[in-house]
Protein backbone atom coordinates (compact mmCIF):
# COMPACT_ATOMS: atom_id res chain seq x y z
CA UNK A 1 0.00 0.00 0.00
CA UNK A 2 1.35 3.31 -0.95
CA UNK A 3 1.39 5.72 1.86
CA UNK A 4 2.62 9.20 1.50
CA UNK A 5 4.50 9.13 -1.70
CA UNK A 6 7.04 11.83 -1.57
CA UNK A 7 10.01 12.16 0.61
CA UNK A 8 9.71 14.21 3.69
CA UNK A 9 11.55 17.44 3.88
CA UNK A 10 13.54 17.61 7.06
CA UNK A 11 11.68 20.69 8.08
CA UNK A 12 8.34 19.04 7.82
CA UNK A 13 8.25 17.27 11.14
CA UNK A 14 9.26 20.41 12.87
CA UNK A 15 6.71 22.44 11.06
CA UNK A 16 3.93 20.02 11.60
CA UNK A 17 4.64 19.75 15.25
CA UNK A 18 4.89 23.45 15.70
CA UNK A 19 1.71 23.82 13.87
CA UNK A 20 0.14 21.36 16.13
CA UNK A 21 1.13 23.45 19.04
CA UNK A 22 -0.30 26.54 17.59
CA UNK A 23 -3.37 25.12 16.15
CA UNK A 24 -6.22 23.77 18.02
CA UNK A 25 -7.28 20.26 17.70
CA UNK A 26 -6.18 17.54 15.60
CA UNK A 27 -7.81 14.52 14.43
CA UNK A 28 -8.45 13.13 11.16
CA UNK A 29 -11.01 11.01 9.79
CA UNK A 30 -11.78 11.80 6.48
CA UNK A 31 -14.11 10.51 4.26
CA UNK A 32 -15.56 10.40 0.96
CA UNK A 33 -19.15 10.94 1.66
CA UNK A 34 -20.30 9.98 -1.72
CA UNK A 35 -18.96 6.51 -1.49
CA UNK A 36 -19.20 5.85 2.16
CA UNK A 37 -16.56 3.23 1.88
CA UNK A 38 -13.02 2.87 2.96
CA UNK A 39 -9.98 2.27 0.94
CA UNK A 40 -10.74 4.56 -1.92
CA UNK A 41 -7.82 4.91 -4.23
CA UNK A 42 -7.05 8.35 -5.37
CA UNK A 43 -6.13 9.28 -8.85
CA UNK A 44 -2.57 10.05 -7.98
CA UNK A 45 -1.98 6.62 -6.64
CA UNK A 46 -2.21 7.28 -2.98
CA UNK A 47 -4.34 5.01 -0.94
CA UNK A 48 -6.80 7.00 0.99
CA UNK A 49 -7.50 5.22 3.96
CA UNK A 50 -9.99 7.56 4.97
CA UNK A 51 -13.49 7.16 4.35
CA UNK A 52 -16.48 8.57 5.81
CA UNK A 53 -19.18 7.08 7.79
CA UNK A 54 -21.63 4.68 6.43
CA UNK A 55 -24.43 7.02 7.15
CA UNK A 56 -23.14 9.12 4.44
CA UNK A 57 -22.57 12.70 4.14
CA UNK A 58 -24.91 14.45 1.93
CA UNK A 59 -24.12 17.30 -0.26
CA UNK A 60 -20.41 16.97 -0.09
CA UNK A 61 -18.60 17.99 -3.12
CA UNK A 62 -16.11 15.95 -4.97
CA UNK A 63 -12.49 15.87 -4.19
CA UNK A 64 -9.84 17.40 -6.28
CA UNK A 65 -6.15 16.95 -6.40
CA UNK A 66 -5.08 19.72 -4.19
CA UNK A 67 -7.99 21.76 -3.19
CA UNK A 68 -11.31 22.89 -3.82
CA UNK A 69 -14.85 22.52 -3.01
CA UNK A 70 -16.29 22.62 -6.40
CA UNK A 71 -18.99 21.10 -8.40
CA UNK A 72 -22.66 21.46 -8.88
CA UNK A 73 -23.59 21.64 -5.25
CA UNK A 74 -21.65 24.78 -4.42
CA UNK A 75 -23.91 26.80 -2.14
CA UNK A 76 -24.43 30.49 -2.77
CA UNK A 77 -26.14 33.32 -0.94
CA UNK A 78 -25.55 35.93 1.73
CA UNK A 79 -25.53 33.21 4.39
CA UNK A 80 -22.58 31.41 2.81
CA UNK A 81 -19.04 32.21 3.88
CA UNK A 82 -15.90 30.79 2.36
CA UNK A 83 -13.62 28.76 4.58
CA UNK A 84 -10.25 27.30 3.80
CA UNK A 85 -7.45 25.14 5.06
CA UNK A 86 -4.33 26.90 3.87
CA UNK A 87 -1.71 27.00 6.60
CA UNK A 88 -2.88 30.17 8.26
CA UNK A 89 -1.02 33.36 9.13
CA UNK A 90 2.52 32.05 9.26
CA UNK A 91 4.37 31.11 6.10
CA UNK A 92 7.30 29.76 8.06
CA UNK A 93 5.33 27.50 10.37
CA UNK A 94 2.00 26.89 8.67
CA UNK A 95 -0.86 25.29 10.52
CA UNK A 96 -2.01 21.83 9.52
CA UNK A 97 -5.69 20.92 9.36
CA UNK A 98 -6.78 24.31 10.59
CA UNK A 99 -9.87 25.93 9.11
CA UNK A 100 -9.95 29.67 8.53
CA UNK A 101 -12.44 32.31 7.48
CA UNK A 102 -12.62 36.10 7.28
CA UNK A 103 -14.70 38.37 9.49
CA UNK A 104 -15.34 42.09 9.51
CA UNK A 105 -15.70 43.89 12.82
CA UNK A 106 -16.99 47.43 13.22
CA UNK A 107 -17.47 49.78 16.12
CA UNK A 108 -21.15 49.54 16.94
CA UNK A 109 -23.30 51.40 14.48
CA UNK A 110 -20.42 52.47 12.28
CA UNK A 111 -20.01 51.54 8.66
CA UNK A 112 -16.63 53.21 8.36
CA UNK A 113 -14.81 52.34 11.57
CA UNK A 114 -14.44 48.76 10.47
CA UNK A 115 -11.73 46.19 9.90
CA UNK A 116 -11.73 43.03 7.85
CA UNK A 117 -9.59 40.31 9.42
CA UNK A 118 -8.57 37.11 7.69
CA UNK A 119 -7.04 33.96 9.18
CA UNK A 120 -9.74 33.68 11.80
CA UNK A 121 -9.92 30.05 12.86
CA UNK A 122 -13.32 28.39 12.61
CA UNK A 123 -13.83 26.33 15.77
CA UNK A 124 -16.85 24.22 16.57
CA UNK A 125 -15.21 23.36 19.89
CA UNK A 126 -15.64 26.80 21.43
CA UNK A 127 -18.18 29.61 21.58
CA UNK A 128 -17.66 33.26 20.69
CA UNK A 129 -15.36 35.46 18.62
CA UNK A 130 -11.86 36.24 19.93
CA UNK A 131 -9.40 38.48 18.14
CA UNK A 132 -5.71 38.92 18.85
CA UNK A 133 -5.10 42.48 19.99
CA UNK A 134 -1.98 43.04 17.85
CA UNK A 135 -4.11 42.40 14.77
CA UNK A 136 -6.87 44.82 15.72
CA UNK A 137 -6.40 48.30 14.29
CA UNK A 138 -9.75 49.83 15.21
CA UNK A 139 -10.93 50.78 18.66
CA UNK A 140 -13.84 48.86 20.10
CA UNK A 141 -15.73 49.92 23.24
CA UNK A 142 -14.90 47.77 26.24
CA UNK A 143 -17.62 46.12 28.28
CA UNK A 144 -17.98 47.03 31.91
CA UNK A 145 -18.32 44.52 34.70
CA UNK A 146 -21.13 44.85 37.20
CA UNK A 147 -18.70 46.13 39.80
CA UNK A 148 -17.66 49.05 37.63
CA UNK A 149 -14.35 47.81 36.29
CA UNK A 150 -13.65 46.59 32.79
CA UNK A 151 -14.89 43.10 32.05
CA UNK A 152 -11.86 40.93 31.25
CA UNK A 153 -11.87 37.26 30.44
CA UNK A 154 -9.63 34.25 30.92
CA UNK A 155 -10.10 31.69 28.15
CA UNK A 156 -8.56 28.38 29.16
CA UNK A 157 -7.27 25.64 26.92
CA UNK A 158 -5.86 22.30 27.98
CA UNK A 159 -2.39 23.72 27.41
CA UNK A 160 -2.62 27.39 28.30
CA UNK A 161 -4.74 30.51 28.51
CA UNK A 162 -5.73 33.63 26.59
CA UNK A 163 -6.41 36.78 28.63
CA UNK A 164 -8.06 39.97 27.48
CA UNK A 165 -10.98 42.38 27.79
CA UNK A 166 -14.47 41.95 26.44
CA UNK A 167 -15.41 44.51 23.79
CA UNK A 168 -18.56 45.15 21.78
CA UNK A 169 -18.40 44.84 18.01
CA UNK A 170 -20.74 44.62 15.09
CA UNK A 171 -19.67 41.44 13.34
CA UNK A 172 -20.12 40.75 9.66
CA UNK A 173 -19.39 37.40 8.05
CA UNK A 174 -20.19 37.14 4.38
CA UNK A 175 -23.65 38.68 4.05
CA UNK A 176 -24.71 38.16 7.67
CA UNK A 177 -24.38 40.84 10.32
CA UNK A 178 -24.72 40.74 14.09
CA UNK A 179 -24.97 43.89 16.15
CA UNK A 180 -23.23 44.59 19.47
CA UNK A 181 -21.58 41.23 19.90
CA UNK A 182 -19.45 40.75 23.03
CA UNK A 183 -16.06 39.57 21.75
CA UNK A 184 -12.77 38.97 23.52
CA UNK A 185 -9.65 40.95 22.61
CA UNK A 186 -6.77 38.64 23.47
CA UNK A 187 -3.43 40.00 24.60
CA UNK A 188 -4.46 43.63 25.01
CA UNK A 189 -1.54 45.78 26.13
CA UNK A 190 -3.91 47.63 28.45
CA UNK A 191 -4.57 44.57 30.58
CA UNK A 192 -1.36 42.81 31.38
CA UNK A 193 -1.91 41.99 35.02
CA UNK A 194 -3.21 38.47 34.70
CA UNK A 195 -4.79 37.02 37.87
CA UNK A 196 -2.96 34.02 39.27
CA UNK A 197 -5.98 31.77 38.80
CA UNK A 198 -5.73 32.50 35.07
CA UNK A 199 -1.98 32.50 34.53
CA UNK A 200 -1.71 29.32 36.59
CA UNK A 201 -3.53 27.15 34.09
CA UNK A 202 -0.50 27.14 31.77
CA UNK A 203 1.47 29.38 29.45
CA UNK A 204 -0.04 32.41 27.73
CA UNK A 205 -1.40 32.05 24.21
CA UNK A 206 -1.80 35.71 23.44
CA UNK A 207 0.09 36.41 20.23
CA UNK A 208 -0.61 35.39 16.65
CA UNK A 209 2.44 33.15 16.85
CA UNK A 210 1.40 31.34 20.00
CA UNK A 211 -2.27 31.27 19.04
CA UNK A 212 -1.72 30.18 15.45
CA UNK A 213 -4.39 32.48 14.06
CA UNK A 214 -5.50 36.10 14.03
CA UNK A 215 -8.45 35.05 16.11
CA UNK A 216 -10.97 32.29 16.59
CA UNK A 217 -14.65 32.12 15.69
CA UNK A 218 -16.31 29.73 18.12
CA UNK A 219 -19.42 28.38 16.41
CA UNK A 220 -20.16 25.30 18.49
CA UNK A 221 -23.47 24.24 19.97
CA UNK A 222 -23.65 26.82 22.76
CA UNK A 223 -24.59 30.50 22.65
CA UNK A 224 -22.12 31.74 25.29
CA UNK A 225 -18.66 30.63 26.32
CA UNK A 226 -19.48 30.18 29.98
CA UNK A 227 -23.25 30.13 30.25
CA UNK A 228 -25.46 29.93 33.31
CA UNK A 229 -22.66 29.22 35.78
CA UNK A 230 -21.14 32.65 35.32
CA UNK A 231 -24.42 34.42 36.00
CA UNK A 232 -24.31 33.48 39.69
CA UNK A 233 -20.86 32.14 40.60
CA UNK A 234 -18.27 34.81 41.38
CA UNK A 235 -15.27 32.50 41.24
CA UNK A 236 -16.22 31.13 37.84
CA UNK A 237 -12.67 31.34 36.41
CA UNK A 238 -13.94 32.94 33.20
CA UNK A 239 -14.68 36.57 34.06
CA UNK A 240 -12.90 39.28 36.04
CA UNK A 241 -13.47 42.94 36.82
CA UNK A 242 -10.39 45.09 36.33
CA UNK A 243 -10.64 48.58 37.76
CA UNK A 244 -8.84 51.32 35.94
CA UNK A 245 -5.33 51.70 37.22
CA UNK A 246 -5.81 48.82 39.62
CA UNK A 247 -3.06 46.28 40.00
CA UNK A 248 -5.51 43.53 40.69
CA UNK A 249 -8.49 42.10 38.83
CA UNK A 250 -11.26 40.51 40.87
CA UNK A 251 -13.47 37.58 39.87
CA UNK A 252 -16.97 38.63 38.92
CA UNK A 253 -20.27 37.25 37.82
CA UNK A 254 -21.77 38.28 34.50
CA UNK A 255 -25.40 38.28 35.48
CA UNK A 256 -26.72 38.70 31.97
CA UNK A 257 -26.02 35.90 29.53
CA UNK A 258 -26.17 38.50 26.78
CA UNK A 259 -23.10 40.21 28.24
CA UNK A 260 -20.96 37.11 28.05
CA UNK A 261 -18.78 36.48 25.01
CA UNK A 262 -21.32 35.19 22.53
CA UNK A 263 -21.34 32.96 19.48
CA UNK A 264 -22.01 35.64 16.82
CA UNK A 265 -24.31 33.36 14.88
CA UNK A 266 -27.02 33.56 17.52
CA UNK A 267 -27.12 37.34 17.07
CA UNK A 268 -27.74 37.26 13.34
CA UNK A 269 -31.29 38.53 12.65
CA UNK A 270 -31.99 35.35 10.70
CA UNK A 271 -30.09 32.17 9.93
CA UNK A 272 -29.15 32.13 13.60
CA UNK A 273 -29.91 28.60 14.79
CA UNK A 274 -26.71 26.89 13.70
CA UNK A 275 -24.02 26.47 11.11
CA UNK A 276 -23.17 23.99 8.40
CA UNK A 277 -19.56 23.22 7.57
CA UNK A 278 -19.08 21.71 4.12
CA UNK A 279 -15.64 20.57 3.05
CA UNK A 280 -14.56 18.50 0.06
CA UNK A 281 -12.83 15.18 0.30
CA UNK A 282 -9.08 15.38 0.54
CA UNK A 283 -6.75 12.86 -1.11
CA UNK A 284 -5.02 10.46 1.25
CA UNK A 285 -1.68 12.12 0.78
CA UNK A 286 -3.13 15.48 1.61
CA UNK A 287 -3.71 18.79 -0.11
CA UNK A 288 -1.96 22.14 -0.12
CA UNK A 289 -5.23 24.01 0.11
CA UNK A 290 -8.82 23.06 0.77
CA UNK A 291 -11.72 25.36 0.04
CA UNK A 292 -15.14 24.89 1.55
CA UNK A 293 -18.20 26.61 2.92
CA UNK A 294 -19.68 27.74 6.18
CA UNK A 295 -23.42 28.11 5.74
CA UNK A 296 -25.38 29.96 8.42
CA UNK A 297 -28.75 28.72 9.61
CA UNK A 298 -30.42 25.35 9.29
CA UNK A 299 -33.78 25.04 7.51
CA UNK A 300 -34.00 28.81 7.23
CA UNK A 301 -33.12 29.15 3.54
CA UNK A 302 -33.22 27.00 0.44
CA UNK A 303 -29.48 26.39 0.71
CA UNK A 304 -29.39 25.09 4.28
CA UNK A 305 -32.16 22.52 4.41
CA UNK A 306 -31.91 19.47 6.58
CA UNK A 307 -31.76 16.31 4.59
CA UNK A 308 -31.49 12.72 5.64
CA UNK A 309 -28.53 13.27 7.90
CA UNK A 310 -28.24 11.33 11.10
CA UNK A 311 -28.97 13.61 14.05
CA UNK A 312 -26.88 13.11 17.15
CA UNK A 313 -28.01 15.14 20.12
CA UNK A 314 -25.19 16.12 22.48
CA UNK A 315 -24.85 16.74 26.18
CA UNK A 316 -26.60 19.99 27.12
CA UNK A 317 -23.83 21.26 29.36
CA UNK A 318 -20.60 20.26 27.64
CA UNK A 319 -21.63 19.31 24.10
CA UNK A 320 -20.29 15.77 24.06
CA UNK A 321 -21.62 12.43 22.80
CA UNK A 322 -20.50 8.81 22.88
CA UNK A 323 -18.17 7.07 20.48
CA UNK A 324 -17.92 3.31 20.54
CA UNK A 325 -14.41 2.34 19.56
CA UNK A 326 -12.57 -0.91 20.21
CA UNK A 327 -15.63 -2.08 22.16
CA UNK A 328 -15.29 0.81 24.56
CA UNK A 329 -17.83 3.53 25.19
CA UNK A 330 -16.04 6.85 24.98
CA UNK A 331 -18.67 9.04 26.61
CA UNK A 332 -16.96 12.41 26.27
CA UNK A 333 -16.43 12.46 22.52
CA UNK A 334 -16.88 15.51 20.34
CA UNK A 335 -16.77 16.88 16.80
CA UNK A 336 -14.29 19.72 16.59
CA UNK A 337 -13.04 21.72 13.64
CA UNK A 338 -10.57 23.18 16.12
CA UNK A 339 -8.72 19.89 16.51
CA UNK A 340 -6.14 19.29 13.81
CA UNK A 341 -6.37 15.53 13.80
CA UNK A 342 -8.36 12.55 15.00
CA UNK A 343 -7.37 11.95 18.60
CA UNK A 344 -8.08 8.76 20.43
CA UNK A 345 -6.23 6.24 22.52
CA UNK A 346 -4.84 3.35 20.54
CA UNK A 347 -1.88 1.02 20.44
CA UNK A 348 -0.77 2.47 17.10
CA UNK A 349 2.88 3.53 17.13
CA UNK A 350 3.44 7.07 18.25
CA UNK A 351 5.90 9.25 16.37
CA UNK A 352 7.82 10.56 19.33
CA UNK A 353 10.24 13.47 19.34
CA UNK A 354 8.93 16.44 17.43
CA UNK A 355 5.64 14.77 16.65
CA UNK A 356 4.94 13.56 20.14
CA UNK A 357 1.49 12.06 20.51
CA UNK A 358 0.84 11.84 16.80
CA UNK A 359 0.58 8.39 15.29
CA UNK A 360 3.19 7.01 12.94
CA UNK A 361 1.98 3.53 11.94
CA UNK A 362 4.30 1.47 9.76
CA UNK A 363 1.44 1.12 7.32
CA UNK A 364 -1.89 2.87 7.04
CA UNK A 365 -4.37 1.68 9.65
CA UNK A 366 -7.97 1.36 8.51
CA UNK A 367 -10.34 1.61 11.45
CA UNK A 368 -13.95 2.24 12.28
CA UNK A 369 -16.00 3.56 15.14
CA UNK A 370 -19.62 4.27 15.93
CA UNK A 371 -20.81 7.72 16.92
CA UNK A 372 -23.82 7.64 19.22
CA UNK A 373 -25.95 10.64 20.13
CA UNK A 374 -27.63 11.15 23.48
CA UNK A 375 -30.81 10.34 21.57
CA UNK A 376 -29.44 6.91 20.74
CA UNK A 377 -28.84 7.55 17.07
CA UNK A 378 -25.83 5.56 15.93
CA UNK A 379 -23.68 6.17 12.90
CA UNK A 380 -20.66 4.17 11.82
CA UNK A 381 -17.60 5.97 10.56
CA UNK A 382 -14.56 4.51 8.90
CA UNK A 383 -11.30 6.34 9.02
CA UNK A 384 -7.63 5.77 8.42
CA UNK A 385 -4.52 6.67 10.29
CA UNK A 386 -1.39 7.51 8.31
CA UNK A 387 2.19 8.19 9.18
CA UNK A 388 2.41 11.80 10.37
CA UNK A 389 6.12 11.94 9.60
CA UNK A 390 5.72 11.28 5.90
CA UNK A 391 3.45 14.17 5.03
CA UNK A 392 4.73 16.15 2.12
CA UNK A 393 6.15 19.55 2.87
CA UNK A 394 3.48 21.59 1.12
CA UNK A 395 0.54 19.82 2.74
CA UNK A 396 -1.76 21.76 5.05
CA UNK A 397 -4.73 19.38 4.89
CA UNK A 398 -3.98 15.83 5.99
CA UNK A 399 -6.97 13.50 6.24
CA UNK A 400 -5.09 10.69 7.96
CA UNK A 401 -3.43 12.75 10.67
CA UNK A 402 -4.20 11.26 14.06
CA UNK A 403 -2.80 10.95 17.52
CA UNK A 404 -3.41 9.88 21.08
CA UNK A 405 -5.79 11.39 23.59
CA UNK A 406 -5.06 11.37 27.31
CA UNK A 407 -6.73 9.21 29.86
CA UNK A 408 -9.00 11.11 32.17
CA UNK A 409 -8.62 9.89 35.72
CA UNK A 410 -6.33 8.06 38.01
CA UNK A 411 -7.67 4.60 38.28
CA UNK A 412 -8.05 4.20 34.58
CA UNK A 413 -5.65 3.68 31.75
CA UNK A 414 -8.48 4.14 29.33
CA UNK A 415 -9.50 7.37 27.68
CA UNK A 416 -13.14 8.42 27.61
CA UNK A 417 -12.76 10.66 24.59
CA UNK A 418 -12.68 10.42 20.82
CA UNK A 419 -11.80 13.87 19.52
CA UNK A 420 -13.13 13.97 15.94
CA UNK A 421 -11.11 16.85 14.58
CA UNK A 422 -11.04 18.51 11.20
CA UNK A 423 -10.24 15.37 9.18
CA UNK A 424 -13.73 14.13 10.08
CA UNK A 425 -15.15 17.11 8.21
CA UNK A 426 -13.30 16.37 4.98
CA UNK A 427 -15.81 15.04 2.49
CA UNK A 428 -18.75 15.74 4.74
CA UNK A 429 -21.44 18.29 5.35
CA UNK A 430 -21.74 18.66 9.12
CA UNK A 431 -24.59 20.50 10.83
CA UNK A 432 -24.10 22.14 14.22
CA UNK A 433 -27.36 23.28 15.81
CA UNK A 434 -27.28 25.58 18.84
CA UNK A 435 -28.78 24.82 22.22
CA UNK A 436 -32.51 25.43 22.43
CA UNK A 437 -32.87 26.23 18.75
CA UNK A 438 -35.12 24.21 16.49
CA UNK A 439 -34.93 23.06 12.93
CA UNK A 440 -37.37 21.04 10.88
CA UNK A 441 -35.83 17.86 12.19
CA UNK A 442 -34.86 18.53 15.79
CA UNK A 443 -33.87 20.76 18.66
CA UNK A 444 -30.31 21.70 19.57
CA UNK A 445 -27.84 21.10 20.87
CA UNK A 446 -27.19 18.55 18.18
CA UNK A 447 -24.78 17.69 15.39
CA UNK A 448 -25.82 16.01 12.16
CA UNK A 449 -23.97 14.64 9.16
Amino acid at each position, binding site marked *: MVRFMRTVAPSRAWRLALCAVLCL*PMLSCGGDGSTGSTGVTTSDGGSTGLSSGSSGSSGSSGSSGSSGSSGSSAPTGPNVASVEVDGGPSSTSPDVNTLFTTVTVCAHGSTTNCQTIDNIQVDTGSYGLRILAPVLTISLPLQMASGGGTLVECT*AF*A*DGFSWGPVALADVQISGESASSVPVQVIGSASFTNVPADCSS*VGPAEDTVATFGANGVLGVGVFAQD*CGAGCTTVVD*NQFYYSCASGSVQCEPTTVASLASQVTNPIVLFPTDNNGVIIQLPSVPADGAATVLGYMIFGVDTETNNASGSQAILTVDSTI*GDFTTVFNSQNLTTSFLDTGSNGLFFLSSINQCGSNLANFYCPTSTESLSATLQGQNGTMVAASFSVGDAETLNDNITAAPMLAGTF*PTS*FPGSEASTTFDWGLPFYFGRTVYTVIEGDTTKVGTGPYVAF
Partner: protein
Amino acid sequence: MPTSQSIANVKKCLLAGAVLAAALSPCIADAGLGQAETSVQTDAARLKGSIKATQYTGYHVQEIQMPSGTLVREFVATNGTVFAVDWNGPTVPNLRQILGQYFNNFVAAAQAKHAGHRQLQIQQSDLVLQASGHMRAFSGRAYLPQAVPAGVSIADLR
Protein backbone atom coordinates in the same frame (compact mmCIF):
# COMPACT_ATOMS: atom_id res chain seq x y z
CA MET B 1 -2.93 36.43 51.07
CA PRO B 2 0.58 36.16 49.64
CA THR B 3 1.99 37.76 52.76
CA SER B 4 0.23 35.50 55.17
CA GLN B 5 1.29 32.41 53.28
CA SER B 6 4.95 33.17 52.96
CA ILE B 7 6.08 31.62 56.21
CA ALA B 8 3.99 28.54 55.73
CA ASN B 9 5.49 28.16 52.29
CA VAL B 10 8.96 27.95 53.69
CA LYS B 11 7.87 25.26 56.09
CA LYS B 12 6.27 23.27 53.36
CA CYS B 13 9.30 23.59 51.22
CA LEU B 14 11.48 22.11 53.88
CA LEU B 15 9.02 19.37 54.56
CA ALA B 16 8.66 18.57 50.91
CA GLY B 17 12.39 18.42 50.49
CA ALA B 18 12.55 15.85 53.22
CA VAL B 19 9.68 13.80 51.97
CA LEU B 20 10.44 13.83 48.31
CA ALA B 21 14.04 13.43 47.34
CA ALA B 22 13.15 14.26 43.79
CA ALA B 23 12.26 17.79 44.74
CA LEU B 24 15.16 19.44 43.04
CA SER B 25 13.64 22.67 41.90
CA PRO B 26 13.18 25.63 44.19
CA CYS B 27 10.04 25.65 46.25
CA ILE B 28 8.10 28.21 44.37
CA ALA B 29 4.71 26.66 44.84
CA ASP B 30 2.44 26.72 47.80
CA ALA B 31 1.41 23.16 47.85
CA GLY B 32 0.20 20.29 45.78
CA LEU B 33 1.79 17.30 44.18
CA GLY B 34 4.77 15.94 46.05
CA GLN B 35 4.02 18.03 49.11
CA ALA B 36 2.80 17.13 52.54
CA GLU B 37 -0.86 16.60 53.19
CA THR B 38 -1.11 19.83 55.13
CA SER B 39 -0.73 21.51 51.77
CA VAL B 40 -4.20 20.32 50.84
CA GLN B 41 -5.62 22.89 53.22
CA THR B 42 -3.62 25.57 51.46
CA ASP B 43 -4.82 24.33 48.10
CA ALA B 44 -8.43 24.33 49.19
CA ALA B 45 -8.11 27.88 50.48
CA ARG B 46 -6.45 29.02 47.29
CA LEU B 47 -9.08 27.27 45.16
CA LYS B 48 -11.81 28.58 47.45
CA GLY B 49 -13.09 25.07 47.70
CA SER B 50 -14.53 22.79 50.33
CA ILE B 51 -12.80 19.58 51.36
CA LYS B 52 -14.11 16.08 51.78
CA ALA B 53 -11.81 13.25 52.79
CA THR B 54 -12.31 9.57 51.99
CA GLN B 55 -10.13 6.75 53.31
CA TYR B 56 -8.99 3.83 51.20
CA THR B 57 -6.50 1.07 51.86
CA GLY B 58 -3.04 2.54 51.72
CA TYR B 59 -4.08 6.09 50.94
CA HIS B 60 -6.84 8.60 51.29
CA VAL B 61 -8.39 11.14 49.00
CA GLN B 62 -8.98 14.81 49.69
CA GLU B 63 -11.65 16.21 47.40
CA ILE B 64 -11.74 19.93 46.80
CA GLN B 65 -14.99 21.15 45.26
CA MET B 66 -14.34 24.46 43.54
CA PRO B 67 -17.03 27.14 43.12
CA SER B 68 -16.71 26.87 39.34
CA GLY B 69 -17.90 23.29 39.53
CA THR B 70 -14.52 21.70 38.95
CA LEU B 71 -13.58 18.91 41.32
CA VAL B 72 -9.94 18.58 42.35
CA ARG B 73 -8.75 15.45 44.14
CA GLU B 74 -5.47 14.94 45.93
CA PHE B 75 -4.33 11.42 46.74
CA VAL B 76 -2.38 11.20 49.98
CA ALA B 77 -0.16 8.31 51.05
CA THR B 78 -0.13 7.13 54.64
CA ASN B 79 3.20 8.93 55.04
CA GLY B 80 1.40 12.14 54.28
CA THR B 81 2.73 12.81 50.80
CA VAL B 82 0.43 13.90 47.99
CA PHE B 83 1.40 11.40 45.30
CA ALA B 84 -1.34 12.05 42.76
CA VAL B 85 -3.87 14.72 41.82
CA ASP B 86 -6.65 14.94 39.32
CA TRP B 87 -9.26 17.43 38.18
CA ASN B 88 -12.49 17.37 36.22
CA GLY B 89 -15.04 20.03 35.44
CA PRO B 90 -15.96 23.12 33.45
CA THR B 91 -12.74 25.03 34.22
CA VAL B 92 -9.05 24.32 34.56
CA PRO B 93 -8.02 24.70 38.21
CA ASN B 94 -4.98 26.65 39.37
CA LEU B 95 -2.41 24.09 38.26
CA ARG B 96 0.48 26.00 39.79
CA GLN B 97 -1.23 25.34 43.08
CA ILE B 98 -2.08 21.68 42.75
CA LEU B 99 0.96 20.62 40.72
CA GLY B 100 3.33 22.46 43.02
CA GLN B 101 6.88 22.43 41.73
CA TYR B 102 5.81 20.28 38.79
CA PHE B 103 3.89 23.18 37.28
CA ASN B 104 7.16 24.13 35.62
CA ASN B 105 7.23 20.76 33.87
CA PHE B 106 3.69 21.39 32.66
CA VAL B 107 4.52 24.82 31.26
CA ALA B 108 7.63 23.52 29.53
CA ALA B 109 5.65 20.74 27.90
CA ALA B 110 2.87 23.12 26.88
CA GLN B 111 5.36 25.43 25.22
CA ALA B 112 7.08 22.58 23.42
CA LYS B 113 5.72 21.12 20.24
CA HIS B 114 2.73 18.90 20.89
CA ALA B 115 -0.56 17.91 19.40
CA GLY B 116 -3.06 20.74 19.43
CA HIS B 117 -4.66 22.78 22.19
CA ARG B 118 -6.98 20.08 23.46
CA GLN B 119 -4.46 17.97 25.28
CA LEU B 120 -1.05 17.71 26.87
CA GLN B 121 0.88 14.66 28.03
CA ILE B 122 4.06 14.17 30.01
CA GLN B 123 5.46 10.70 30.46
CA GLN B 124 8.64 10.70 32.52
CA SER B 125 10.10 8.29 35.01
CA ASP B 126 9.35 10.69 37.85
CA LEU B 127 6.20 12.39 36.55
CA VAL B 128 3.14 11.38 34.59
CA LEU B 129 0.79 14.17 33.61
CA GLN B 130 -2.18 14.19 31.28
CA ALA B 131 -4.44 17.15 30.65
CA SER B 132 -7.21 17.47 28.12
CA GLY B 133 -10.50 19.09 27.30
CA HIS B 134 -12.32 21.81 25.48
CA MET B 135 -14.29 24.87 26.55
CA ARG B 136 -16.65 23.92 29.43
CA ALA B 137 -15.11 20.45 29.91
CA PHE B 138 -11.59 19.89 31.18
CA SER B 139 -9.91 17.06 32.99
CA GLY B 140 -6.48 15.88 33.86
CA ARG B 141 -4.33 13.93 36.23
CA ALA B 142 -0.77 13.85 37.44
CA TYR B 143 1.13 11.47 39.65
CA LEU B 144 4.62 10.71 40.86
CA PRO B 145 5.37 7.06 40.01
CA GLN B 146 8.11 6.88 42.61
CA ALA B 147 5.86 8.24 45.36
CA VAL B 148 2.96 5.84 44.84
CA PRO B 149 2.63 3.91 48.12
CA ALA B 150 3.70 0.30 48.21
CA GLY B 151 0.72 -1.93 47.63
CA VAL B 152 -1.22 0.79 45.84
CA SER B 153 -1.64 0.72 42.07
CA ILE B 154 -2.46 3.82 40.11
CA ALA B 155 -5.00 1.68 38.33
CA ASP B 156 -6.74 1.13 41.67
CA LEU B 157 -7.34 4.78 42.39
CA ARG B 158 -10.95 5.74 42.25
